[in-house]
């Protein structure tokens, strides 16, 4: 087991109250695995990744839980100790390739900084490695492009640069936070393909944060679905897509347009909207938008329970109904 997150809670203290952006979540990532966390904006998926990296900014803070990476608790580490891990054993690429690179630094300097922060090698060697990495991520004539400034590159190219930078110290875990969201569809596929290749090449685990189930189905091994800071469903990719359990997951899947869908049915939409984080519905957070909402759902929060290796947080699958499910 490479990373184990246990009962993580992350809060934002605001004037009007405390928002629990990540609410008691637990999951693990194995070596070489691609785990996707899916959810709408506000579901807590990005805050989860920032919590792991120790990059939360005020007023956010980790209120409890453990984040153990190779059996060390990252949550208990000082910033100094974390700095040795960040960019080295765990690195991250972000959603916005346009703004995530420093506009006044040449890209080679930005990648070299990552390398030289963690490796004791000369500038010359770092530059050679930088160019090699740029080549690896598929940037043509890397030696020349290394001298470019970010604004001289396209979005897709910049995301490749970000990837080269993140992989430059051969991390064991790469956190990719919506790596394709800001890119054109054709470029999205290329970047996903790149991530896949890099996983194979460097044998690293990937935590893929996304709101796009299409991306998940293409890239991930296992999926976690988050809603309002809670994990509502967790399964391997195949069973999630073939047999989604949680009404929210079902809704998400139904709202993806299918090209081969020949019926005239209108595209499904989950009714309502994400509740105000300061004013959550009592009981299940999804109850006010759920088509299968029962009275009990509005009163208590269901537990995450495991049914044949498939985890779900919903009263529809309460222990009593276990037999029914396997019959389905």
């Amino acid at each position: 087991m490479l990373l184990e997150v246990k009962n993580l809670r992350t809060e934002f203290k605001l004037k009007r109250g405390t928002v629990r952006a990540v609410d008691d979540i637990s999951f693990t990532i194995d070596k070489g695995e691609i785990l996707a966390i899916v959810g709408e904006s506000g579901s807590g998926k990005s805050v989860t990744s920032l919590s792991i990296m120790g990059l939360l900014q005020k007023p956010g803070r980790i209120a409890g839980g453990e984040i153990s990476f190779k059996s060390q608790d990252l949550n208990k580490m000082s910033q100094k100790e974390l700095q040795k891990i960040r960019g080295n054993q765990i690195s991250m690429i972000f959603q916005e390739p346009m703004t995530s690179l420093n506009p006044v630094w040449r890209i080679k300097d930005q990648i070299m900084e990552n390398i030289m922060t963690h490796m004791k090698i000369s500038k010359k060697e770092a530059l050679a490695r930088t160019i090699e990495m740029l080549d690896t991520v598929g940037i043509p004539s890397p030696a020349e492009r290394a001298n470019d400034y970010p604004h001289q590159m396209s979005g897709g190219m910049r995301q490749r640069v970000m990837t080269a930078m993140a992989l430059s110290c051969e991390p064991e875990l790469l956190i990719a936070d919506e790596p394709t969201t800001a890119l054109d569809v054709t470029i999205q596929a290329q970047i996903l393909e790149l991530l896949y290749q890099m996983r194979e090449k460097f044998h690293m685990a990937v935590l893929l944060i996304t709101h796009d189930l299409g991306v998940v189905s293409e890239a991930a091994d296992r999926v976690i679905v988050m809603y309002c800071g809670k994990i509502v469903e967790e399964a391997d990719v195949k069973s999630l897509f073939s047999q989604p359990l949680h009404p929210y997951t079902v809704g998400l899947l139904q709202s993806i347009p299918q090209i081969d869908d020949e019926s005239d049915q209108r595209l499904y939409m989950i009714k309502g909207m994400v509740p105000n984080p300061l004013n959550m519905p009592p009981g299940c957070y999804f109850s006010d938008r759920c088509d299968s909402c029962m009275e009990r759902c509005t009163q208590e929060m269901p537990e995450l329970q495991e049914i044949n290796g498939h985890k779900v947080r919903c009263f529809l699958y309460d222990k009593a109904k276990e037999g029914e499910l396997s019959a389905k």
Partner: protein
Amino acid sequence: MLKYIFKRILMLIPVLIGVSIIVFLIMRVFSPDPAPIVLGQHATQTAVEVWRQANGLNDPIFLQYYHFITGALTGDLGTSFYTKMPVLKEIFSRFPATIELAVVAIMLASIFGILIGVVSAVKKNSIFDNAGMLLALVGVSMPIFWLGILLIIFFSGTLHWLPSSGRINPMLQPGSVTGFYLIDSLIAGNMDAFGDALRHLVLPASALAMYSMAIIARMTRSSMLETLQQDYIRTARAKGVSEGRVIRKHALRNGLIPIVTVIGLQLGSLLGGAVLTETVFSWPGIGSYTVACILKSDFPVVQGVVLLIAFVFVLVNLLVDVIYAFLDPRIKYSKKEG
């Protein structure tokens, strides 16, 4: 780049012509007749006429302007009504004093302003931040000349530490090479003169610097706060770069780009502030001289000084834009017209 600079220099010309027209209008069209002021209340009608004729004041206004502008192009700004000396000579005998004061002041303002601004941003809402911003607030709210007075009362009057007026002890005055006493005394190897000139500079430069320092501190703080929120700062942190390096190498490098413009603009306001500071500290520069000349209706001198100050101001702004381009690789002047 050179092409851009050249183009910008060409664009200075209409601005300078505009400045000359405005000053000319104010001084020659709207101002009262200078003759009684220059010659005294009891000058005879004929004496006034002779004087007006001699100074070209009886010419049609357009002809007067034509004479002025053609003279200016050849470096002749006319002669003072009072001293009968060429205006250019009058100006240049006093200009170094003002430049010396302004340069020291802008250096003080930039160093302390940026320092306070950066620390306040990094330690946002700390005691230092609150104290720094309170100081900055008071700094922009205090009249420059009053601050000068306070400094004199305290450091010259009460403590007797520093001189309250003048540029240097006349006994120590170094030979004039550049006109900047700090430099001249160093050239002459006269450390006593250097120290004395420095002692004379401390109070007026501090008074003059305060306002600009406050502005620079506030702008630096807000620029740094914004920069620290940027995605690339998060990227740098995600690389495992230490927080100190993130601030010095990533945030400062970006956050200070707009500050260059602020500093450039402040130099303009410093030249204005010099008018007051020089008056308070009897600093023999161009500011106090100009006030005196405006009040005495010494037209040629006023025109010359204002033109020169405007020239310095636009030149500094040009310089700022050029520095800006070096600091920010995103700016390409070939596509942009000023």
